[in-house]
């Protein structure tokens, strides 16, 4: 198939920057990475980009296509080529460009390292010299965070980092959650204290671009939410962001609605709230501040209180209260998933149902889950031999 690409070329040595267009012939199954290979091999050997595994696991080939971060190896080009679209390929955002599609990952990794990205052994270390005994359910709290391949796609799209380059960012914070949520880790409080500082979890603008662009379903924003919830649960709530979040809950459970006039003093403290008087006046003009300081209680306040009670009774406060996102790798949509095996085999165009030679189709379906390897019992036969 014919594929057209426009690639932003850049050379940090000279500062030259140019948008170049390439027309190439590629096989129909080609990914964006395959197309870049064809450009580099046959059209322009000076094109620079990173690549390695070409199977969505090494995280090398993060770049932007039409302004949004993708893994080049995960992006199939067939539909784009059929539509006759010529996508614009550029380097990832929020990281300095070194050459063409290659960015300097140093800022990325220094934030990663700032998270103490290793397990600090806890106190309940097994005394028999064996592995920790932990249920899969308990580990699943950080299942998605453990899928992260450090490709940088989330960082590329992070809006908070665009305005605050020092913001730790979605990837580093997801790595943080990987350990905060790990039952083997003994440094939860120290970690959360650290992540609660300036440029930390509360500086996220909740735009959800990171969840949107993550090629592995890590959902970094969910991880940040979990870190916030876990901080508050453990009383690490000095940051304005934490106070702000706490007030939302407090307000909802006491009066069933958000008392906005109290939000600023509760978040910033009464002293600094005085500086916001002008803003308060503006709120009043728009009818957001009630003239009488007696809070209005919503009619269905019991419902709000009960919701809160349910969360507490189910012990789902903190990270456990954040429901795993639907986009997690393990949850890739697969129709209803309710078909029986017979229905699956009977689907039109379906491959033949498996059977063991000589045993007919019905008997061939016993699931072999355990290898029956008995050395020397029967020789390996060639087909057709007795």
């Amino acid at each position, binding site marked *: 198939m014919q594929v057209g690409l426009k690639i932003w070329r850049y050379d940090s040595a000279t500062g030259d920057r140019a948008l170049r267009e390439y027309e190439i012939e590629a096989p129909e199954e080609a990914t964006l990475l395959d197309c870049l290979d064809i450009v580099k091999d046959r059209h322009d050997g000076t094109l620079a980009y990173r690549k390695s595994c070409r199977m969505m696991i090494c995280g090398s080939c993060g770049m932007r296509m039409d302004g949004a971060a993708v893994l080049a190896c995960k992006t199939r080009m067939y539909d784009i080529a059929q539509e006759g679209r010529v996508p614009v390929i550029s380097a990832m955002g929020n990281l300095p460009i070194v050459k063409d599609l290659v960015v300097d990952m140093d800022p990325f990794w220094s934030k990663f390292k700032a998270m103490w990205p290793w397990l600090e052994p806890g106190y309940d270390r097994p005394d028999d*010299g064996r592995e920790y005994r932990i249920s899969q359910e308990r580990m699943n709290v950080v299942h998605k965070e453990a899928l992260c391949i450090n490709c940088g796609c989330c960082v590329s799209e992070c809006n908070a980092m665009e305005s605050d380059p020092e913001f730790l960012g979605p990837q580093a914070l997801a790595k943080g959650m990987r350990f905060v949520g790990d039952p083997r880790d003994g440094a939860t409080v120290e970690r959360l204290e650290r992540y609660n500082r300036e440029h930390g979890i509360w500086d996220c603008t909740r735009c959800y671009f990171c969840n949107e662009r993550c090629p592995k379903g890590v959902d970094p924003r969910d991880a940040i939410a979990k870190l916030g919830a876990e901080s508050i649960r453990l009383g690490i709530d000095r940051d304005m962001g934490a106070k702000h979040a706490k007030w939302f809950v407090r307000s909802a459970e006491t009066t069933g609605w958000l008392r906005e006039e109290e939000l600023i003093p509760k978040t910033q403290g009464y002293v600094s709230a005085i500086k916001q008087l002008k803003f308060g006046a503006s709120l009043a003009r728009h009818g957001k501040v009630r003239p009488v300081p007696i809070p209005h209680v919503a009619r269905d306040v019991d419902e709000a209180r009960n919701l809160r009670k349910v969360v507490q009774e189910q012990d789902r406060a903190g990270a456990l209260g954040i429901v795993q996102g639907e986009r997690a790798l393990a949850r890739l949509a697969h129709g209803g998933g309710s078909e029986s095996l017979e229905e699956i085999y009977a689907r039109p165009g379906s491959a033949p149902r498996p059977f063991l030679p000589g045993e007919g189709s019905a008997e061939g379906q016993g699931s072999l889950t355990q290898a029956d390897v008995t050395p020397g019992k029967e020789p390996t036969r060639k087909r057709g031999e007795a």
Partner: protein
Amino acid sequence: MPLGVDGSAADGEARCASVISVIAKHDVLVVGAGCAGMRAAIEAYDAGADVAMISKLHPTRSHSGAAEGGINAALGNAAEDNAEIHAYDTVKGSDYLGDQDAIEVFAEEAPGDIIQLENWGAFFSRREDGKLAQRPFGAAGSPRTVYAADITGHVLIQVLWEQVCKRDIPVYEEFFAWQLVEHEDRCQGVICWDLLHGGLKTVGGKTVVLATGGAGRQYRVTTNAYACTGDGMAMALHAGLPLKDMEFMQFHPTTLYPTGILLTEGIRGEGGYLINKDGERFMKHYAPNALELASRDVVSRSEQTEIDEGRGIEGSVLLDMRHLGAERIIERLPGSRELSMVYAGIDPIYDPVPVRPGAHYHMGGIETDNDGATEMTGLYAAGECACVSIHGANRLGGNSLMETITFGRRAGRSAAEWALSHTTVEVPESAERDAEARLRDLLDREGGERPWKLRDELGSSMLENFAVFRREEQMARQIEIIEGLRERYPNVYVEDKGEVFNSDLTQAIELGNMLDTALCMVTAGLVRKESRGAHARPHDYPTRDDENFLHHSITRWKDGGVELTKSEVRFTKWEPQERTY
């Protein structure tokens, strides 16, 4: 100002301002930062050495991370198991070419290494009792493969990288290691091309550990990453060291059609079927007991036979997991499902996936002893680039990840111990001048053939002539083809003349590495007139010949060609027997 090959000053543009200097000296220098490299570096650090790593990729980009199914250790969590059974399975799997003392060390130490990884925080899958889960794998007498769904390699790379960060071990990232520095009969460092900034950089080390992985890119259909080009093997080869058992290239039975992307053996471990176009589970004909979970060489040959005899579909057979059900597929094999969906457009819950044998793993490599030491003082090797040998003629699934950890650790420890008892590092100017001249030669060419042509020809011809089944005349022809490519190689043209991220240059160097190591493989294969493990010659020598070929093949680089000799296999307690599954 750098000097050109003829000694004159390079042109005023200074296309390549490659001034050589030793940028740093360390006790232990680890080349390659996959599982073996990182494990070696961690061990050397813990032994008290000043250690650094060199890698042409960031450590987490290493191809160890693409391993899927699991890592073998006889923990006995799922069924009765012990190191002796593990060792026996490995010996048998190796078709009796594995060195048994090494295999015993390996099986004995593996469980401790796994527990350590878990204690470091590895995200392994769990049993209901909270212990590490273990799944059945091919040719294993007990379910002993510890796993993390089907992203085990990723989990290992992450936990090792975390431990590297914790120790703050320096990494020379995107440094392309090119040439070993041999001085006073020992290895004292590595000359590298700095990919990100340009320039030749020499890093000194009292000891050097090569952990550069495999060379699957010699084949057009391979599970291997673009980075797997045998750089470490070639460096050792060019330094005069022996490569052992290079003819044994493992073909993984389930690589996705048409890309060659790996689908884990864990799919079959979880109960997946291999069927031909009629739906017949053909493995019954070839391995009546183990069926789909026979050894990899057996399964690959069976598939190739089905395909060759017309019972395949478009050059592949089908991997069927429909009967496992959506829940099990989603829980245990989510990555394989995603790979099938993205690269073949098939959801394995509803349809079987087309698979075929693809080049996967080099059983052979740089000859080492059980502590990773090579023939050259101060030089060690571990992981896929090394050949201890625990895999012999055929590796069992799940044993290579374990090898990277156990022998990475052992190599790191012995490299550190040697380094801490010796003092100096010296890099002679001559070594640097040699590298400089090679670089100039490559970059100064004003025209020639682009490397991809040679690379594609190598990949296609290796697949045709030196794959699952091998014939005398095809191997002979392949040697001619490789020689022809090697003759053209001095004329390859590097289009990019810049300093910054010149991957055009490094890809050209990689091509040279692949050509020379491929020549070793086919040369050794041609002479091995028997069928053993991954080396199958059904047409002329269909059986194993212990009388004449129960020995390792040793290839060395001599006078611009391959010199072939042999060495003894080390036995302890298992006599060669007929190998059946």
